[in-house]
């Protein structure tokens, strides 16, 4: 079965510290992986997708097929990074995203 697991419901780090939000998935084929973010009082929006290999707002994520993980990383956290982060997986279909439960990231000053 397709599944996305974000093991941390809440992650709190100090400003300037490195951040790693974990995402593990279960899928037998070649998935597309995404990170979506929801800032306070804003809409859910795409942060990055693994196929684009971009760095957005200093965040990167590497797809590790061996460990079936897609962890989101940033070397130096900023206060504006505080938000809910969701990892999502797309299998073979054009309509289905499987979502993790989300991690609330709090950056302490």
């Amino acid at each position, binding site marked *: 079965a397709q599944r*996305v697991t974000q093991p941390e419901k809440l992650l709190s780090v100090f400003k300037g510290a490195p951040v790693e939000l974990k995402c593990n998935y279960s899928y037998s084929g070649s998935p597309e992986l995404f990170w979506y973010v929801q800032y306070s009082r804003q*809409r859910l929006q795409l942060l990055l997708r693994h196929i684009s290999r971009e760095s957005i707002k200093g965040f990167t994520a590497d797809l590790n097929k061996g460990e079936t993980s897609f962890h989101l990383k940033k070397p130096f956290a900023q206060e504006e990074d505080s938000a809910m982060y969701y990892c999502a997986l797309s299998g073979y279909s054009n*309509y289905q995203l499987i979502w993790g439960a989300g991690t609330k990231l709090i950056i302490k000053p």
Partner: protein
Amino acid sequence: DAGITQSPRYKITETGRQVTLMCHQTWSHSYMFWYRQDLGHGLRLIYYSAAADITDKGEVPDGYVVSRSKTENFPLTLESATRSQTSVYFCASSEMGGIRNTEAFFGQGTRLTVV
């Protein structure tokens, strides 16, 4: 305004009543989606539509009805609301490539409480 808009933002209704949540997008995106989000869970797909007059069930369709007579509108109806349908509902849209290949754009969400 350009974008995707949900209405109402908040709704309280009684068990057994019919409720319709509205979703309107101005981009002429092919795909539209309805998700529900419950505490401690990820978003779950209720229904989706690949184009006008084409709709299909998602993961949790029971108790819901959708229609898409126009590209820009995708209303979600709870035919007889139950307490288990208390949730936050999100509408989303994406271009022709679908949610796997293009970005999904989300509405602000509708918080529905069934009492």
